[in-house]
């Protein structure tokens, strides 16, 4: 199948703009009326939703940030009463406070449709066997992908905590035809296969769809050659919406945005002004159909640029490039977004130190992102008894895993060693 939603994916521009405007106005009105935060935001700027009479007028509206999401924890940004919510997704978030996203039954259906478009564009059909391998930190996406693939009618193995060798065993035995994972985990699997002397030809794999991290052309080339498959990418801002709100088609040249459900703007991260087409800026999203958790001009922190030309694949949905970087300090580790402030909070809580000094060291091992926390030894954590220190470190590691969904190594360091790096506490040394 070429398209999941041919009609919507090939809409002519005028029709699409009409749909967008209607849905935008409806979203703004609902958000203004039902969500105190948006009501106050609009009122303080003296804007009424009715003043938006074209899609371009959206630039008059204020931005929403990740901090706003955290400040309204837990249910503050829900635009429908709880009884209409069927799913509540907790997420660590990247701000100081966690973020809670809600979905109505209708929202989940929309998400299934969007995800099905992404999967269909990547070649998934109803007879496929789909295996999902994602980090626990991306479990919300794991569910979205599972439901999207089931929506198409494919057979799905949901994500689970299995070692790579066991995942590979399942892939061979179950005759998995589609792998959904992150680019780095796919590369890691390749390495493990080499070590196990497994030949990719024994696999029934025909496509790999990746999410969570940008896909470089180089990685795509390696994976396609080694697995004899097509590799396409999807994009979604972590923890807020689905993993495939923009997705590649077989042209593999930019990601089609689901413009009937979302508005995407590219803005200058400093001034907030719209970027010219082709110029890199921050991706800003406005939901057009979300009922439970509408977002208005949400600043994702992801950098990309718009692609101007129409795509030969037949989709009229506009395209954006893959993510080329992030604004601010947010780190992407194995697809999971982490803010150094989160790490600091965990260290404070678990180490007993009031202001722990630390550096975050990122590097690659067997294609996988590794994270190491270099923590300064202080009296709070130090003890003559090795056992006590070891216990404290184990506790820290567990906390990291539970809060971030990532395995982090903790290294204790002397203050003088940390001083050698000209980075302030909480700084990042990225050797990837």
């Amino acid at each position, binding site marked *: 199948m070429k398209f999941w939603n041919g009609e919507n994916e090939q809409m002519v521009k005028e029709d699409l703009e009409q749909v967008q405007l209607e849905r935008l106005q409806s979203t703004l009105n609902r958000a203004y009326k039902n969500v105190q935060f948006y009501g106050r935001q609009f009122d303080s700027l003296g804007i009424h939703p009715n003043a938006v009479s074209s899609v371009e007028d959206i630039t008059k509206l204020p931005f929403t940030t990740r901090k706003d999401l955290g400040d309204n924890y837990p249910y503050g940004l829900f635009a429908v009463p*709880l*009884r209409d919510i*069927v799913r509540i997704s907790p997420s660590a978030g990247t701000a100081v406070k966690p973020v*809670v996203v809600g979905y109505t039954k209708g929202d989940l259906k929309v998400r299934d449709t969007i995800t099905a478009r992404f999967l269909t564009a990547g070649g998934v059909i109803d007879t496929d066997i789909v295996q999902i391998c994602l980090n626990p930190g991306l479990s919300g996406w*794991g569910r979205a992908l599972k439901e999207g693939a089931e929506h198409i009618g494919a057979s799905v193995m949901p994500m*689970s905590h299995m070692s790579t060798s066991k995942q590979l065993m399942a892939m061979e035995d179950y005759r998995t035809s589609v792998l959904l994972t992150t680019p780095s985990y796919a590369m890691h699997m390749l390495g493990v296969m080499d070590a196990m002397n497994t030949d990719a030809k024994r696999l029934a794999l025909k496509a790999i769809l990746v999410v969570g991290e940008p896909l470089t052309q180089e990685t795509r080339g390696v994976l396609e050659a080694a697995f004899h498959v097509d590799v396409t990418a999807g994009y979604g801002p972590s923890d807020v919406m689905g993993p495939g709100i923009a997705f590649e088609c077989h042209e593999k040249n930019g990601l089609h945005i689901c413009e009937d459900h979302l508005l995407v703007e590219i803005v200058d991260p400093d001034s907030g002004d719209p970027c010219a087409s082709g110029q890199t800026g921050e991706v800003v999203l406005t939901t057009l159909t979300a009922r439970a958790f509408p977002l208005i001009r949400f600043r994702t922190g992801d950098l990309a640029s718009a692609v101007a030309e129409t795509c030969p694949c037949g989709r009229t949905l506009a395209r954006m490039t893959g993510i080329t970087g992030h604004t601010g300090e947010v780190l992407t580790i194995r697809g999971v977004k982490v803010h150094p402030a989160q790490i600091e909070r965990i260290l404070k809580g678990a180490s007993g130190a009031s202001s722990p000094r630390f550096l975050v060291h990122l590097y690659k091992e067997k294609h996988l992102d590794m994270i190491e926390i270099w923590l300064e030894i202080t009296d709070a954590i130090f003890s003559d008894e090795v056992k006590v220190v070891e216990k404290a470190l184990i506790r820290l590691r567990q906390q990291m895993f539970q809060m971030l969904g990532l395995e982090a190594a903790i290294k204790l360091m002397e203050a003088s060693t940390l001083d050698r790096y000209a980075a302030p506490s909480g700084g990042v040394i990225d050797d990837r």
Partner: protein
Amino acid sequence: MLRLRSVHSYYSNAHVLKGISLHVRPGELIALIGANGAGKTTTLKTISGLVKARRGEVGFRGADIAGLAPNKIVRQGLSHVPEGRQIFAKMTVWANLELGGYLLRDREDVVQVAFNYGLFTGAFGLHYGAEQIGASVVPSSVGNTRRQVRILKDYRTTTLVCTPSYALRIAEVIKQMGVDPKILALKQGLFGGEPWGEEVRQAIEERLYIKAYDNYGLSEVMGPGVAGECPNRAGMHVAEDHFITEIIDPDTGEVLQNGTTGELVLTTVTKEAFPVIRFRTGDLASLDDSPCPCGRTLARISRISGRCDDIIIVKGVNIYPGAVGPILEAVTGVAPVYQLVVGLENDQDFLGIRIEVSEAMFFDKMERQRAMVDRLRKKVRDTLGITPRIWLVEAGSIRQDEETAPMVVDRRGGPEAS
């Protein structure tokens, strides 16, 4: 059920209803017939509160609802579906009437699913079931109990879904965090994944101030929801329209009389992809087909009293004790002598493995020994999905009394104690 007594209603000054009286009993269908302008619509509007009665009484389930706002009347379970508007024209009359159930309180429940999402069917099964009712589901998964408690409190969770031992762990952490369980919105819990007795139920109910319900399912058959307790909590109603239940003698295979405990055998009758015929669950229970006061006619099975094979269930994971040997051997290179120890700590199950040190596993350096234990722990975790405690013991200390040394020592108490 519904009673109108001498009701008078007006449209401003026009006196439309002049002393209407009407009585609808439970199960009764009443139609109002009359000419245009006779006041049929006004009567209905008066009942649903759209028009206020100036005089007279409107009683519903024994309470006077005259003068209540329409939304409050709907919340009491009385709904008004105006045919003239053709709002739901394509739906059947029955579906239109069912809209009266629109505000069922279940839809306001916040269900926290603290099971491991993954290949285990429990989490997804209960998750989607709760969504189908229209409840709000929080897939909090497992781990970080403090975070679970924060979610419980902040999200105003009303229904907790997890293993019974994890519920007790949560209760413990609630106490540690100084949270008063009475202030939580929690009103019930659905627990499963491992056998639990009435003592555990009582402990959960006392510590969390909730009603604890048992349910039964297994991934080979359907996942959760094969059987579950009703508010009477005297056995679990089997979804008999989907499963045929038998209780057999585990040794002879003979079908046993109702009330006798034996092995539960299930046959699926609606499952398409993976039908099972006379599947021997290995679980011990008895069958009861006497009527239940709750109104369900579905037969009940007793709560599971144990297993008839040697499977042990730890943290909801099924383990064949004999399968642990090859896992250990893969690391140590030789078939080790070992014993499983299952126990409770902080109300949580743990799995311990005692392994006799043989020459092949002996290292002169502590560091290497420790590395091997780490590898063993990781291997068991990767294969069984549960992280064990590993104790290396001296050669001969398990074998010593081989005759009596069981492969499993279960220190958890309750029905499974050995």
